[in-house]
Structure formats: C-alpha cells, structure tokens
C-alpha cells in the first residue's frame, strides 16, 4: 500500500482537521466528534440537513456543508457507516428548532445507525425525518433484497433539498422535495482499477490489465459483472442505456447530468465520457439543464466513473439551479 498518510488509524481524524483548516469560513468541527457542521450552525428557523456515511467518498459529505446544501456531515471510518452517537451529536448541534432531515444512502448499516440516532434525538424532542437514497440501477430492485445502493445521486438530494430548506420550508416540505429527487434520480458506475482501504492495506478486489467491473459500487463492492475494457463510448452507451431504460427517461424530458469520477480518473476521461453522454441524450431528444463533471462521490483511489441522470420538473430545476456555497460546490 502506498498512500500519503501518517497511520491508517488516523486518516479520518487528520482529514477532518485538514478540512476545517482549509475551509474555516465554511466548516467547524464538533469537538470530540467526527462531525463537520456549518461555521454558523445552527441556522435559526431553517430545517437542517444532515448526511454522512463512511469516509473515503470525499468531497462527500463534508464538502457539501454550507449554504444551500448540508448543515452537518458525519464521517464514519473508511467505508463504514458512522455510529449512532456521532449522528445524534450532529443532529443536536445543527437543529435550529425546525427539525432535521437525515439523508441516508441505502446500506443496511447506514440505515440502522441513522435510525438509532433519530430515535435518540426524538427522545430529546427534536423533530427528525429521513430520506433514503437508492439510485444505483446496477443492482436489481426487488422486495426480497436490501434494495438498491445509494451512490452519486445523493449529491443531487443534498443540493435540491438543501435549496428547499434555505427557502424556509417546513420539514415535511423539504422531505417531499428530497423524495421527489430520489424517485427521479438514477445512476450507474464502473471501475477499471481497485481501491485500498487504509486499515486493510491491500486492494479489496483485483482486476486484470484489461478487465473492468461494470456496476461497481462506491465501496469496492462488486458490481453486476466483469468484462474486457471497451472504448469509452461503448462503456457510456452501456451505462446510460441501463439508466435511461430504468426510470424511464424519454423524449421531451429535461435532466441534470452528473459524470462523477471515482477518485483516480483524470478529468480528461470524465469529459470524454460526458461528450458521449451529451450526444446520446441529444439523440434521445432529452434536454440537459445542467451538467456536473468532476469528483463528487469518490471511492478512495478507485479509477472509474459513474453517470447520474435526474429527471427535472420546474420545481426541481429551480432548486437545482439555486445558489450554493460549500467547499466542494459553489453555484451562483
């Protein structure tokens, strides 16, 4: 393992310290906890948004703490859901009296830990509600599985529900909008090289020189299948067709696009992928209202990318285009 770290045990702690030092205007650390909150938290009279999950997905989630997006982000160990006491602390610190919406990615551990935290906060009289993100179309949905994973589409929930909360909307309204995003967002990814969890010291999977994993999750968990590396356009075609067929997205729809790098993918390759995404959407007569290309929801140093499409209506479009001012996403 070759990483710019001091010790595997300290990666999350030292990352959080560095993040606060880099963005003092945005972020403040909750003393004694792996929790980043807005520098001016709690914002009185505003519903607060708390998200989080395992670390290793930077800039998710701490990077989205700021005006127009999150109020607090809880960082678990690498690829491991944060514990209930950590989430509970975040809820208490950010609550401005209007309640707190938890944005949870659909993983068994995340749901259990956030649920236990919500129970603790509710016992204190804090209004807490939650939305579960499950945008990954690689994983077949069915009533007898855990359901789909939450991946990069989560950032759209942060953006849109965050914008709604800034308008002074009530918790139920913010939740309604967040759920509308969940209903209309779909993603799928692939990886060409693995990542190494610092504490594990070795890659969690291996791929041959020409082999790729289609449907890769954001924790190095396997996807749907392996195949030989194909040209970028063919890979995009495979992923995007799965995504558009799923909702489905069709002629006349307006969408937001996210081409997300998994950590070690050059921006060059993400733009190459986006070129094909745009071309295919145009062919399908789907209008793109806004495109995001970059590293939004990563998986340590994994090389690969995901595509996310969000179907917009007028309400979602306005909230998507509303201003945001966070370390990782600034929109004017």
């Amino acid at each position, binding site marked *: 393992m070759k990483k710019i770290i001091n010790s595997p045990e300290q990666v999350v702690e030292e990352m959080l310290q560095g993040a606060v030092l880099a963005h003092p205007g945005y972020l403040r650390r909750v003393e004694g906890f792996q929790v980043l909150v807005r520098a001016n938290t709690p914002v009185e009279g505003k519903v607060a948004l708390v998200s989080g999950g395992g670390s290793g997905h930077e800039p998710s989630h701490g990077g989205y703490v700021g005006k127009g997006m999150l109020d607090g982000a809880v960082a678990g160990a690498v690829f*491991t859901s944060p*514990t209930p006491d*950590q989430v509970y602390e975040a809820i208490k610190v950010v609550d401005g009296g209007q309640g707190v919406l938890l944005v949870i990615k659909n993983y068994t551990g995340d749901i259990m830990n956030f649920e236990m935290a919500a129970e603790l906060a509710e016992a204190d009289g804090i209004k807490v509600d939650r939305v579960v993100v499950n945008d990954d179309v690689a994983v077949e949905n069915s009533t*007898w*599985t855990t359901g789909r994973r939450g991946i990069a589409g989560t950032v759209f929930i942060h953006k849109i529900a965050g914008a709604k909360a800034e308008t002074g909307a009530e918790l139920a309204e913010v939740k309604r909008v967040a759920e509308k995003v969940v209903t209309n967002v779909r993603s799928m990814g692939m990886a060409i090289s693995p990542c190494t*969890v610092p504490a*594990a010291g070795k890659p969690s999977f291996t791929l041959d020189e020409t082999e790729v994993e289609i449907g890769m999750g954001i924790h*190095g*968990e396997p996807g749907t299948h392996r195949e030989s590396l194909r040209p970028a356009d063919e890979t995009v075609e495979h992923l995007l067709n799965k995504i558009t067929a799923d909702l489905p997205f069709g002629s006349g729809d307006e969408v937001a696009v996210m081409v997300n790098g998994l950590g070690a993918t050059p921006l060059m390759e993400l733009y190459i992928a986006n070129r094909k995404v745009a071309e295919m959407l145009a062919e399908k007569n789907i209008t793109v209202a806004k495109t995001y290309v970059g590293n939004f929801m990563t998986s340590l140093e994994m090389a690969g990318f995901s595509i996310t499409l969000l179907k917009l209506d007028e309400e979602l479009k306005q909230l998507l285009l509303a201003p945001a001012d966070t370390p990782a996403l600034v929109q004017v």
Partner: protein
Amino acid sequence: MANCLIAAVEAIGAAIASNKEVLTSLDAAIGDADHGINMARGFQAVSGKLSTLAQTADAATVLKTVGMTLITTVGGASGPLYGTAFLRAAAAGQGKNTLSPSDVGNMLAAAIAGIKERGKAVRGEKTMLDALEPAYEAFKSAEQQGRSLVECLAAARESALDGVMFTKSIIATKGRASYLGERSLGHQDPGATSAYLIIAALEEFCRSQEQREE
C-alpha cells in the same frame, strides 16, 4: 461474576482479533472488506472500557457496557446488530449473579430477537442469523437434556459452524452481499462467521474455567 464475564468477553475479543484478516477477506469477496477491521476495533474498545468496570459489577452491567461500546465504535451493520444483541442479553441477565445454562439460553434468545428486530432479517438470508439460530436451537436442546454449560455451548458451536457452511449454499437477500445476487453463492457469510467465532470462544473459555475448577 464480573471477573469471569469480563474474561469471557476478553476471550471473544482475542478470537476476533486473531481472525481479523479472515473476516475482512470473507467480507471483501461479497461485501466491503471491513468486517474484521470493524469488529477488532470494537472489541479493542470494549477491552478498554471493561478494565474500568468495578469488580463487583453484575452480568447486566458488563454486557450493557459491551453493547454500548460496540454500538459507538464498530459502525457499519455489525455495530448496531452486535451492540443490540449484547444490550438485550444484558436485559435478560438483569440481576443475575450466577448464570445457569438456562439463563445463558435465555440471554442468547434475547440477543437473537434483538438482532432480528434491528436488522429486519430472518434465517436463510445469509446473515449472522444463519449461525445464531441453529446454535440457539442446539443449545436449548442440550440444556433441556440437562447438559452442562460447556456441553450446551459445544452443541451450539457445532450447529453454528454448520450454519456458517450453509451460508455458502444460499444467495444473500439481506446486507451488502444481497447486491450481488447469485454472485454471492459459494461464499461464506462474514457475519455468520463472526457469530460462530464468538460462540466458539465462549465454549473454549468456559471449558478452560471448568478445567481450572476441577
């Protein structure tokens, strides 16, 4: 009481620590490669917490400390599940100063009920329940035949191992491995494996205690 139970939990922690890489590599095949790391971190913290407990603490206090520590240090799914299990076992052992095989059976039953409630899972979904439920049934049946605690635990350990092996033959429908569908076939469930390790460590510990007493 506290001494003996703390030593039993330490024995579990040692078993988890020495199998940290086994659990992590089982998890790497069908999950996210952190089960051993998380469990080892949790039991290390448990060990630190237990060393501060009074020697006079009762069974419930020891087990509650274990549960709370696991909940606040393990994370993932295992933290809430094993944490809840120990909290429920604590409640079932409330006020006890000695533990009969029947008490231990009741605590095991309460722990399993807690895991099912928290995880919303049932047997046959390739989870820790596939080791724990058969283990409990074997324990119960040995206990009803009037066997000693060590014998009950030995029966539980054997059935737990069968359960672990059984997880290789089924598709995961709960937990992160469920995303794999048929690709989870052939793989041994890491959660079932850690559950087996815990029971095996308990049996070994009780056996060593019994031999000391002889």
